Each structure stands twice: as structure tokens, then as C-alpha cells.
């Protein structure tokens, strides 16, 4: 046991984490962004990125029709090309979980996870009972991945134990039925020091994944934030022998951005993390750009949005 879960042990552990120098982290991320990925590597990277996409719709206007369409796209992103891999998961609110699960199973997407955002996503401002129920519903309806948000208010007011206990509780609900992704909402934590502390807090409490953002707050998955989180999972593996996944979400809209994320993974956490079980990208628009780039590589000329599906 690295910590005993008490407020004081958390405070001690997180307080002793090495600092992050913002300027240095920014410049490392910027340097990695200059990596040039060409030809065969690019093709491989695009397919990998597709398989890592958590295809997401988290709108008040979501309807069964919209979610079903998304599921279709998740199973077969390019209807014209069966060599395109399926995405990693479909990510929805908990009332859409059953619809998504049913649809996926019906069209041969049984292997695709349904991820539900819970715990009063996106703000997390609800009682623990509501959060418990929110999560329990999602699992009962067939969610195999839970994307919970941490209580940023508690974190920022120094109530680390509350944040920790909530994650522990949600993890216990997940059991072996669902993987737990813990959303830090880094745009509200602001500093990289906080991002590092929150990453460890989530991992210590039992997160299977740490996720940058809800997608509702900017900035979201900036390269240096993902860098800091990747450093955290790398070092946590040294500490605990457990590999925790990372999920940037929000703001990754095109192939170039996605490949930059993969470069970050490759050179920070290492190639062991380059698989959907340890790295996901939360996105909606990204998938079509990946498909268009894939077409360009296959056909040799630039594609048009008319040739990818809009759902």
C-alpha cells in the first residue's frame, strides 16, 4: 500500500510529488509536436488512432436516433472500406447506455465498449447518493466503462480525502463489470502541479484510466497536460507495477492533433501504452478527419467531407 487513504497520508504523498515546471513542460510538448510522421508509420498511426477513439455524443439534444447512428459509425467508420478498424468505445450519458448497447450488439459491435459519463457529469456537483445512483444505473444498463468526474471543488479547497473517497466508491461499483475512467477536468485545475497531483490521487484511488476533460471546459486536452499525465502513469507503473490508461478528450479535432498525441505517448509513457486498452481519445469530429486522411493515403489525392458520413 502506497497510502492508507487517510487525508493526512494523501496530503503527504501528493505534497511530496516533484514539481512541474510549466515552461519546461510546454517546451517539451512543443518539441514533440515537431516530430514528422510519414508514409507507413502514418498509415499505422491513423488506424491505431481510429481504434482508440471513444466516439462521443454528450448533448442535451441527444436522441435514440442520434446514438444509434453513432453506434453504426463506431462499428464501421467507413462504410466503403471494411479494413478500417472499429473505434474503442461509444461514449454517452447514462440514459442512452441501453440504446447504445442494444444497437451495437445488433450490428456486430459486441466488442465495442459503451462508456457512460456519470457522477453528475460534467460539473460533478451532486450528492454522493446521486453519483452512486447515476453510476449504478449506467452499469446496470450495460456500460462497461464509467467516465466519472472528480469533485474539483473539493480538490481545490484541499479536501483531497473527499475526492479520493468518491473515486474509491465509484470504483467499488464498477467492480469487474466496468473500467473506471476518472476525469480530472484539467481546465479547472489550471496548474500542471495540480494535474500531476490529481492524476496520482485518481490512480491511488483505483482509476483504470485518467482522463483530461469533460469536453465542456476549455482548455481541454492540451499537449502539455497530456504530457504531465503520461509522465504520471509511467512513474506510477514504476511505483506500483500497474499500467493506468490515459484519455485526452476535448480539442483533438484532426489527424495531425491525434498523431501528436500518439507521439506524446510513444516518447513519454512508451510504446506499451500504444493500444486502446491504455490510450483513448475522446472525440467526435476527429474520426472523420482520420478517415479522410486515410482515404488520401490510399487514393493519393485529397478527399472531401462529402465522402465521409455525418451522423
Amino acid at each position: 500500500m502506497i497510502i492508507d487513504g487517510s487525508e493526512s497520508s494523501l496530503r503527504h504523498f501528493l505534497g511530496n510529488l516533484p514539481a512541474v515546471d510549466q515552461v519546461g513542460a510546454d517546451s517539451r510538448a512543443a518539441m514533440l509536436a515537431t516530430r514528422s510522421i510519414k508514409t507507413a508509420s502514418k498509415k499505422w498511426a491513423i488506424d491505431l488512432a481510429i481504434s482508440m477513439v471513444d466516439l462521443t455524443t454528450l448533448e442535451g439534444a441527444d436522441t435514440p436516433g442520434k446514438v444509434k447512428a453513432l453506434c453504426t459509425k463506431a462499428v464501421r467508420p467507413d462504410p466503403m472500406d471494411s479494413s478500417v478498424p472499429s473505434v474503442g468505445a461509444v461514449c454517452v450519458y447514462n440514459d442512452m447506455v441501453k440504446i447504445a448497447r442494444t444497437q451495437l450488439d445488433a450490428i456486430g459491435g459486441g466488442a465495442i465498449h459503451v462508456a457512460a459519463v456519470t457522477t453528475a457529469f460534467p460539473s460533478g456537483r451532486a450528492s454522493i447518493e446521486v453519483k452512486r445512483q447515476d453510476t449504478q444505473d449506467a452499469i446496470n444498463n450495460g456500460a462497461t466503462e464509467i467516465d466519472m468526474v472528480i469533485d474539483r471543488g473539493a480538490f481545490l479547497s484541499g479536501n483531497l480525502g473527499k475526492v479520493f473517497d468518491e473515486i474509491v466508491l465509484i470504483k467499488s461499483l464498477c467492480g469487474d463489470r466496468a473500467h473506471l475512467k476518472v476525469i480530472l477536468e484539467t481546465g479547472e485545475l489550471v496548474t500542471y502541479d495540480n494535474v500531476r497531483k490529481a492524476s496520482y490521487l485518481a490512480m491511488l484511488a483505483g482509476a483504470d484510466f485518467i482522463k483530461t476533460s469533460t469536453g465542456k471546459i476549455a482548455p481541454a486536452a492540451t499537449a502539455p497536460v497530456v504530457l504531465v499525465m503520461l509522465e504520471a502513469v509511467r512513474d506510477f507503473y514504476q511505483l506500483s507495477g500497474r499500467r493506468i490508461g490515459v484519455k485526452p478528450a476535448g480539442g483533438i479535432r484532426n489527424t495531425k492533433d491525434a498523431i501528436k498525441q500518439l507521439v506524446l505517448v510513444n516518447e513519454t509513457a512508451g510504446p506499451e501504452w500504444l493500444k486502446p486498452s491504455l490510450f483513448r481519445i475522446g472525440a467526435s469530429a476527429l474520426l472523420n478527419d482520420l478517415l479522410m486522411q486515410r482515404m488520401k493515403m490510399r487514393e493519393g489525392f485529397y478527399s472531401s467531407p462529402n465522402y465521409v458520413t455525418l451522423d
Partner: protein
Amino acid sequence: MRIDVKKTYKLYIGGAFPRSESGRVYEINDAEGNFLANPSLASRKDLRDSVVSARNAFGGWSGATEYNRGQVLYRVAELMEGRTFQFAEEIAALEGVNFKNAKSQVEAAIDCWVWYAGWCDKIASVSGSTNSVSGPFYNFTVPESLGVVGIFAGQQSALLGLVAGLAPVLTGGNTAVVIASEKYPLPAITLSEVLATSDVPAGVVNILTGSSAELAPWLGSHMDIDGIDLSGLSKKEEAEVRLAGVENLKRIFRFNDSNSLARVQAFMENKTVWHPIGV
């Protein structure tokens, strides 16, 4: 009738007044050729000892606050003022000028200390800078003390030449090894008596009397001396000192004006610091 008690003029090293380790002296006469004194004829070993004491004193002096240094230098002026008569008599006798002229030289030297004393805590504002670099860094340049500076005091005026060399070197936080005017060494020793009773820490100023030509090559080649003011040397000696000074790339300069910012800047290094700006 009372017989005068005459002063023995010795060296000033590390706050003490030793004779030359060589035991040598040389004879100084007044302008009419009458015997005045037998000051020490410093040897290269005296020079060596002076450099050691100057180096030891460097950390404390360069580390003092500039405000403190300014006060210490001003204190030297205060104490000199009280000895104006003594300095003037020595100068008059040595240089063969009248008392009024000698006194005005002393006053100029005192005022020179006052002028430099005021510079101590302003040099960084004038000589330093903050620099607009293209990136998230606070970048600034500050002048810092160079180290141990050897001074060949101006030969023409026994006291003012000495003070004009010494004061700016101390202003910049350096410690000094001074080779006094060979012909007119006595005010230099009297000045060291002032320094010894002032607040200037021991070793910050070391004053040697003797032959510039003999000491110049040793000073020029000494690897623990960082800079040289060779205002008091001939052109021929200058070339030798410059050549010898290359061995550790000493900062070597010659000056004309007595009150000059350039004299302070010459014996300071500019340090630039890049400090990140982030949260």
C-alpha cells in the same frame, strides 16, 4: 627642544602593516632632495601575500549590500577629511608644491571617494538591464564584482592617482592590490592608516610600495588576479603586462579621468539570468 617622532612607512597587507618580507627599503627624498623616509621595497612575495589576502576578503566585500559598501566608502572620505593637514604636508614635501595646492589635491581625493561612494547602489540600475526575450522568461543582466584587481596607481599625483584607481574598484565590490606611486609613496601608506581605522574590512585593500617595473610582470602573470588598472605604468610596461595577462585573460584597462563610470564598469562582469515565468 623636542625631537619629532617619525613614522616608519610600511606595507599594508591583510589589514596589517608588515615590513617587506625581503627586508628591503628604498630612500625617498623630498622635492629638495632631503631625506624623508625609507618605505618598504615590496617583493614578489609581498605581492603574492597581498593577492591571497585580497582573495580571502573578496567574498565578504562583494557580498556586502551596495548600501553598506557606499557607507563604508563614504566613511573613508570622512576619516580622510580629518587628516587633510597630514596628507597635504606629505604631498607638499614630496611633490614640491605649495601647501594650498597640496590641500586642494587632498580635497579632490576626498571628493572622489564621496563621488564613488554614491555610485555603489546605482551602478546596477545604470549598467544592468532587463531584456525582452522572445519567450516565457524573465531575463535580466546585472553587473557583478570581477574579483581581485591589481592597480598601478597614477604616478603623477601621489594621492589622487591612487584614490581614482582604488575607489571605483571598491565601488564595484572588488578587492585590490595597489602598487603605489614609486616616487611618491608616502600618502599611500597614510591612506592605508585611514583604511585600517575605517570600516573597510581587512584585506579588501592591500598597498605595496616599491618598484613598479619589478612588480609589474609578477602582477601581470599572477593567475589569481582578475583585472588590472595599469594607468600608472609606462607604455612599455603596459605591453608586457598585457601579454602576461593573457594567460588567464585578465581584464586590463587604462584610464584618464579620475571620476568616471567607465572605471567602475571596467571591473565588473555582466551576468545574465534566465528565469522561467510559469504557474
